[in-house]
């Protein structure tokens, strides 16, 4: 089954083609992405109305591009899938309406899927995909969650952030350090020059049992540290790098401690790490060490599939469409808030 996947939930327009008759890396026939980051950078964050407008401009050209890259035509498609949520509602509607219009024209099934399920299963697009079951850490600008994954649509939330997402904390720290938007990767870069011993920032919620996260206290702590340095006239380049390093160490340490606990608690030996923050090198190094100690293995999507992309949506949608699940004709799905653990295994439309 050849499935077109469409992602428009935030500030990236992503499109991809996945063929379920081939597996892993081979099943992905083509993928394309248009990032709006430069446009939103001017405003220091995503402007929802501008994001929606840009999706409407970019979506069809990207669809043409992936079809042409895969040397296929629209008539070779067997199904269409799109991100139905969670995300910005106006942006979601662009993907939903286009997918439904196209599916109607081509008389093929269409299905709205969960954005985070896409992230969870993105490592399935690699040549050595993890087998079920596994523990997944979803860590991005919008989410910090630990999930036990038993199979497609069988997810149990083990823990999540009670306030800011880890990626959001990175972006906020970047603002405090006057780094460009989006600041997460810039903080990590600056941290490379920092002295890990100069400051020690708190590891929130690691001193008690449980798998929930909290990053807002760390944000305040970072702000206070910067203000104190400023007041003392000591906020030079080295001090900024030292703060970035202490901040990154605290976030990474917190994530690693919780992953360790999640592996121990579930007894599972496979850890999937996905979402924008999973690209962080220090996080990967530390998780590698922890996994090795436990004879476990960590799996990551390739770099460009760590952040929002169409490939993960095409993959998840293709699995579900192939199992017979699809939207009711003409009912576009756009669900801005949609807890991951409300998902179920695929349900065939005629059952």
């Amino acid at each position: 089954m050849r499935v077109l996947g469409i992602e428009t939930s935030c500030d990236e327009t992503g499109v991809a083609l996945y063929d379920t008759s081939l597996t892993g890396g081979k099943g992905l026939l083509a993928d394309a992405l248009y990032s709006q980051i430069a446009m939103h950078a001017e405003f220091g964050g995503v402007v929802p109305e501008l994001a929606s407008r840009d999706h409407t401009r970019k979506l069809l050209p990207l669809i043409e591009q992936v079809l042409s890259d895969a040397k296929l035509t629209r008539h070779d498609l067997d199904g269409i899938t799109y991100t139905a949520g969670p995300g910005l509602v106006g942006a979601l509607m662009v993907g939903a309406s286009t997918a439904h219009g196209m599916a109607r024209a081509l008389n093929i099934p269409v299905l709205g899927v969960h954005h985070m399920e896409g992230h969870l299963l993105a490592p399935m697009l690699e040549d050595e995909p993890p087998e079920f079951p596994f523990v997944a850490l979803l860590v991005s600008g919008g989410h910090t969650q630990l999930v036990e994954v038993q199979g497609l649509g069988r997810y149990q939330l083990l823990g999540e952030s009670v306030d800011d997402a880890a990626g959001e904390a990175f972006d906020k720290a970047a603002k405090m350090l006057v780094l460009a938007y989006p600041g997460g990767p810039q903080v990590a870069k600056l941290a490379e020059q920092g002295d890990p011993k100069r400051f020690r920032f708190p590891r929130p919620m690691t001193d008690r049992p449980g798998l929930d996260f909290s990053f807002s206290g760390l944000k305040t702590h970072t702000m206070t540290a910067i203000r104190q340095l400023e007041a003392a006239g000591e906020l030079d380049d080295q001090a900024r790098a030292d703060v970035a390093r202490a901040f990154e160490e605290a976030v990474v340490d917190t994530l690693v401690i919780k992953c360790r606990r999640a592996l121990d608690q579930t007894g599972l030996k496979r850890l999937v790490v996905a979402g924008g923050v999973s690209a962080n090198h220090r996080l990967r190094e530390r998780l590698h060490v922890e996994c090795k100690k436990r004879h476990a293995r960590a799996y990551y999507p390739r770099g460009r599939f760590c952040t929002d992309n169409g490939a993960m949506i095409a993959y998840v949608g293709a699995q579900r469409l192939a199992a017979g699940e699809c939207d009711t004709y003409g009912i576009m799905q756009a669900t801005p808030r949609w807890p991951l653990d409300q998902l179920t295994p695929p349900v065939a439309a005629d059952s």
Partner: protein
Amino acid sequence: MPLHLLALDASSSACSAALLRQDETGATCLARFEMTPRAHTRRLLPMVDEVLAEAQVTPSQLDAVAFGRGPGSFTGLRIAAGAAQGLAFGLDCPLLGISTLEALALQAHRRYHLRHVVTALDARMGEVYAATWHCLKDTITPMSAEAVLAPEALRLPGDETDWVGVGSGFTLWKRFTVDLQLSMPQHLDDLEPRAEEMAWLAARDFAAGLGQTAHLVQPVYLRNDVAWKKPA
């Protein structure tokens, strides 16, 4: 060979679809129109199917697709644009974007035989989307550019005194100038743009060769300062 043209609109609290069929003997238009606040995502395409089924036309028989390109509700414009773009792209047929204000003017002209029409849609934030039209024997001629403005700033393009105001923008009646009010013996604030008139206008534009590849036809928002945040 008859021409089949599908139009759809979601630019206001209403949702509509129309199928126009034209051949040597004439033209007919089948249409659906419903007030569907917050249900456009669930009603727009089923309404398309209803008009297709009633006309016994399959999507592959369509020669062109049209949609209400604005101005209007931003999200509604994009739902119609997405569905219409998806349909036209899937069918590999031309797409046409039709002005919601012009469709409203045609509706007023055909229903009430009006000749001098001011269309105004409520643009929120104390403004209206407006344009002025001369209408004669189903021919609609714009007399001013479509604009988003405060009602007080709307001027009439000529000194006729039989202008009729049409559209939700006239719920702000008291805010238009006295001059405008004196040249406008009546206004109808309960008409909404409809796919039916868009289909007729699209047939005109299609005949003029104005159909385009789907991705080139974009919504026309008129209001473009939407960031509401100062650049950092």
